[in-house]
């Protein structure tokens, strides 16, 4: 009888662990898909100057480091997007790593801006950190680094 109880307990534990593992994997897959979608939404919002959409993507305490090493607050970044003539923002590659309620997105972007009437193309590596808060993901940090090699 004791042997039967032990076996049943082991099976129950195994079931719980497998369920948790699948649940976590599924949660991580969901998180990856969601964050990737938000990254694409970000690109589109910049090109179309959808300030409301951009405002919703970023935490109010956002730390933003631009390609020239300048540090921008959320308000400063939004003001830059509003005033800049951004022609195109393409993500050449992107990967997402999920750490529970934190997601780190890294990849390569290519942005075309019109400056003094001429197109300027910038290609760089980016790292964005997203945090899951309440019921949504918000970006809390973003950095761009020009690719020189």
């Amino acid at each position, binding site marked *: 009888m004791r042997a039967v109880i032990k076996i049943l307990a082991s099976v129950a534990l195994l079931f719980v662990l497998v369920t948790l593992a699948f649940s976590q994997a599924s949660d991580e897959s969901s998180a990856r898909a969601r964050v990737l979608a938000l990254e694409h939404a970000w690109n589109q919002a910049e090109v179309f100057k959808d300030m409301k959409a951009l405002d919703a993507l970023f*935490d109010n*305490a956002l*730390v933003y*480091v*631009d*390609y*020239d*090493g*300048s*540090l921008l607050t959320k308000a400063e970044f939004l003001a830059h997007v509003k005033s800049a003539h951004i022609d195109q923002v393409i993500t050449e590659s992107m990967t997402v*790593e999920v*750490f*529970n*309620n*934190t997601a*780190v997105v*890294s990849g390569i972007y290519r942005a075309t801006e019109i400056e003094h009437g001429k197109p300027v193309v910038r290609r*760089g*590596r980016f*790292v964005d*950190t997203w*945090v899951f*808060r309440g019921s949504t993901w918000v970006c*809390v*940090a973003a*950095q*761009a*680094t*020009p*690719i*020189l*090699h």
Partner: protein
Amino acid sequence: MKVIAPLVLLLSLSSVASVAQDDNTTKSKIVALEQLWNQAYKAGDTKALDTILDNGIVLVNDDGSVQTKAEFLASVKESQNEPASQQQQVAPESLNVHIFNTTAIATGVLKVKGIENGKPYTRRERFIDTWVYKGGTWVCVATDATPVLH
């Protein structure tokens, strides 16, 4: 009822104060880890670096290249054999930490010196390090550096 409301208020205030103290404690911890990183890099202490960097860390160098943790540690070890080639990091000019529950964002400016094509250089870099509280400890899961051009 008259006693309960102030008690609830007191408990709420205590909770807020506790969170603030927790945030301050966390900030101090992250600052200490950043200093440890700086010291370990200078000393070529790959063992110390191994403990504070997550195995899946996203590491972007100031030229836009990426390294895995293993590649980064190997480069630190190699530079100990060739000190002249090592990029030296001077202490951070500035360091700020933002806490988002179990995520900490450390940002600052670092002055680095090195030799490139036989010529010495000094430049400033702005970095963002992302730390996550995992398994009872804080580990860095992402680091990126951008040369300050302005």
